[in-house]
């Protein structure tokens, strides 16, 4: 819609009517500092700080800075577009608090904020469609980017999911905004089309991946047979409390368990943030309570209570109605009167297609620079969840709706500037280039229909992949298990290439489309596993107990101080080694990714230890502050000498 406003005509390809895209599932809200938080000491810089601290400093800071400074403007625009944000008594946009911050930054529309934001944008696209600048191709599957002899992206090949027609869409520039890859894990909180196949097809065409190993596991989801349904962080933002009975599998109904017999483990372990610690931490604690402490609510599966029953029903209905209805509908229990049973689930891909940016003198991004959000394939852009650089090692709640709207709005002019400086546009793509790309995809399609000679079932392969990935690469990661998973996944990959279809027809054949998506999950899955195996540290969502930095043990102040110094030395040494983006490039010869590392731009806010809940945190913080101050004065000295 931004491109249409700039007078560019756009072909919009989507697997599903765009109104049904996965963003509808985003519940909680969208962050920005605002008039109220400003008066409590908040500003855009603090939003940037919270985001990179929450992301364990793996975020690239210039794009995050730009995003934080745009955030209030993004929300104002969405308000003008008609999003029914919840209102205060005086008619201002109401805000709630989300994880990883101490300010109420989050604007929300009930508990279906993503749906409401998406609808407002969808309406604008429909308006542009009527005006004639946008042409929608819904139920089309993106198959691959078309690249000319220089490697530049000149359009895409796509397939009509109804008629199965495969054809080319030549273009001046291409944007992929295809979301995450939760289906690598079988079941997740994501929609059925979040296979990551579009991003994987770009990856296999030469685009680099960044930080593929960083996957957010959301602490609170409703277990289900077909899907793990999200229970928004806003449930905790509005006062929801997480607890388990102190006695394992206490048979009493939850409301009959008195306060003394309840263990509010997040509040006890993290007095400052309580139930609103960042997601990676909440997830690990829930996992720990069930797996290591054996305190799961149920004996035959793992879950903890998320309790809203102390909040008045009217308030719950007004602020959380949408998500409470989901629980009620799918579990048959009313969460207004009975605590919900929840458990973590794969939720968001922090990593994704590597994307570039141009830094401005103020530390943010240079508006209109053609390289902003461009992948390593010239002319191919990636925005939203399928890019990699905004959320670092862990995304803060209500920052994803912000990053996807921001990146889309911001790069409109960048794309126009890129396209207008090219010699050849969509009309000048050589027909030989187009024909070759289309022929390749037609051949892949036909050979799958004709039969690969094998008898593998794509649905069962997908289930097995999901099991392996969930066991080895979610909350807790161990090198022996990761290595095992790589071997297993490599074997599955080979089997996936020998699928036998139960539908050989050429009309609305969902079987063949799914088989292709499953095959294309493997390059992504392998990059994720290799990245995780090589990253011997704990950072954000990536948690390897074997490399966890211990709490301080000494009670003696002098020894404790020495331990803190040592802790900080190790922290710095570890950052020198691992404060880097993992870059994967697909190697078609080995059928595995090649992994390299790239520096992260941390020029605005120097990395500091993330100390939520660590014993001895105050001493470490003291030592760290002294070091930071010494470094800063050293820099000043160097500057005045030069």
């Amino acid at each position, binding site marked *: 819609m931004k491109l249409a406003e700039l007078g560019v005509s756009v072909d919009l390809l989507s697997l599903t009517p765009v109104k049904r895209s996965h963003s509808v599932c985003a519940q909680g809200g969208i962050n920005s500092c605002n008039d109220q938080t400003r008066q409590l000491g908040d500003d855009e810089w603090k939003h940037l700080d919270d985001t990179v601290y929450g992301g364990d400093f793996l975020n690239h800071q210039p794009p995050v800075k730009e995003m934080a400074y745009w955030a209030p403007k993004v929300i104002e625009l969405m*308000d003008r577009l008609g999003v029914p944000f919840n209102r205060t008594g005086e008619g201002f946009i109401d805000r709630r608090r989300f994880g990883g911050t101490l300010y109420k930054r989050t604007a929300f529309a009930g508990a279906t904020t993503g749906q409401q934001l998406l609808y407002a944008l969808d309406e604008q696209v429909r308006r542009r469609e009527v005006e004639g600048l946008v042409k929608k191709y819904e139920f089309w599957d993106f198959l691959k980017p078309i690249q000319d002899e220089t490697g530049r992206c000149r359009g895409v090949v796509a397939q009509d999911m109804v008629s199965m027609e495969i054809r080319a869409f030549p273009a001046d520039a291409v944007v992929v905004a295809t979301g995450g890859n939760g289906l690598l894990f079988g079941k997740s909180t994501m929609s059925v089309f979040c296979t990551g196949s579009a991003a994987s097809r770009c990856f296999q065409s030469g685009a680099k991946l960044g930080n593929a190993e960083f996957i957010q596991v959301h602490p609170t989801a409703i277990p289900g047979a077909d*899907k793990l349904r999200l229970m928004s962080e806003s449930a905790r933002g509005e006062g929801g409390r997480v607890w388990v009975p102190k006695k394992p599998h206490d048979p009493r109904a939850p409301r009959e368990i008195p306060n003394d017999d309840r263990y509010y483990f997040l509040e006890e372990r993290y007095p400052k943030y309580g139930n609103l610690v960042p997601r990676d931490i909440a997830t690990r604690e829930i996992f720990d309570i069930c797996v290591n402490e054996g305190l799961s609510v149920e004996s035959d599966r793992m879950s903890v209570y998320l309790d809203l029953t102390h909040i008045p029903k009217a308030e719950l209905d007004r602020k959380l109605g949408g998500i409470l209805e989901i629980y009620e509908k*799918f579990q048959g229990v009313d969460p207004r009167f009975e605590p919900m049973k929840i458990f973590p689930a794969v939720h968001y891909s922090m990593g994704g297609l590597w994307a570039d940016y141009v830094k401005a003198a103020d530390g943010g991004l240079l508006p209109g620079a053609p390289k902003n959000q461009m992948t390593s394939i010239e002319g191919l852009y990636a925005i939203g969840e399928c890019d990699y650089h905004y959320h670092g090692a862990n995304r803060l709640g209500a920052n994803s709706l912000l990053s996807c709207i921001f990146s889309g709005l911001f790069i409109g002019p960048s794309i126009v500037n890129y396209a207008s400086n090219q010699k050849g546009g969509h009309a000048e793509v050589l027909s030989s280039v187009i024909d070759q790309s289309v022929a390749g995809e037609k051949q892949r399609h036909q050979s799958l229909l004709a039969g690969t000679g094998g008898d593998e079932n794509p649905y069962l392969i997908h289930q097995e992949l999901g099991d392996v990935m969930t066991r080895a690469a979610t909350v807790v990661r161990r090198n022996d298990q990761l290595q095992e998973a790589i071997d297993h996944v490599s074997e599955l990959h080979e089997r996936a290439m020998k699928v036998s279809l139960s539908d050989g027809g050429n009309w609305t054949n969902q079987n063949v489309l799914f088989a292709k998506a499953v095959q294309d999950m493997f390059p992504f899955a392998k990059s994720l596993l290799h990245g995780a195996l090589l990253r011997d540290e704990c950072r954000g969502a990536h948690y390897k107990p074997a490399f966890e930095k211990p709490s301080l043990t000494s009670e003696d102040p002098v020894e404790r101080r020495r331990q803190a110094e040592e802790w900080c030395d190790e922290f710095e040494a570890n950052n020198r080694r691992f404060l880097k983006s993992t870059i994967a490039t697909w190697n078609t010869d080995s059928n595995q990714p090649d992994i390299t590392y790239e520096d992260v731009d941390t020029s605005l806010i120097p990395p500091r230890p993330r100390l939520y809940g660590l014993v001895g945190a105050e001493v470490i913080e003291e030592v760290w502050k002294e070091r930071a101050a010494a470094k800063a004065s050293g820099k000043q000295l160097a500057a005045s000498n030069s």
Partner: protein
Amino acid sequence: MIAPVPMKKNARTQFRVRVLRQDGPGKESYWELFDIDYEREMNVISVLQKIAAKATNADGKKVAPVAWDCGCLEEVCGSCTMVINGRVRQSCSALVDQLLNDNPDEIVLEPMTKFPVIRDLMVDRQRLFRALQRVKAWVPVDSYYNMGPGERQPRDDQEQNYPLSQCMSCGCCLEACPQYNKIELTKEAGETDEQFEERKLAAYDTSFVGAHAISQVMLHNRNPTGKSLAGERLDALMGPGGVSTCGNAQNCVSVCPKEIPLTTSIARAGRATTVAAIKKWFEK
């Protein structure tokens, strides 16, 4: 308190699903039976996933998987509408245990009848989205540049608008509506794709617009900026296939999975169009 009777383990190991299938537009439809292994907490989506993985009917014959549309699986995307045991609804929130409680013999799945079938349970809902274009369901802002905040809005307004804005274009209200009739055109010999598309849209634009679109008119006519198009939206509702087509059966509101007050919107739209018509008459 009386403890609920525990479910007998292995009380049910399998259940039967009857699907109305159709291989493509214009083809004959036919019933096919499937036996599904029972698991706890299943919904119709997981049933269809099992059918896809097994691709074998109740006679043990290999068959192509049943085609259907789905997305979020948590009843916010509107994709997976179908007719289940005779009632139109979202298949993700249709829980197997409840369906078997109502009818232990079988679960019956049929495509919606008001839209052309593409294949099996998949239908073409283009007409539904076309209606949103027809009533200009958007806020005509000047630009997407930063122009400061929108108007302050009373909490009451938000609380009235938000339910209307939750419409996910699933089509349940249209399936249940006696005035909404199926339009299924086929391309004629010698007709280009563009000509066919034009003819199809013209047919859509003169037929009943549907409860969902009427409700969107009322939503956008309440928006401080959106109301600048109020007249045009009401014009659209006064033309053929507009609000007067509604026969007041009130089926729409009873099947809406989001419990949107559709009949309230229709009543308000009826009054608003009457007032607009009288005004126009005076201005002549």
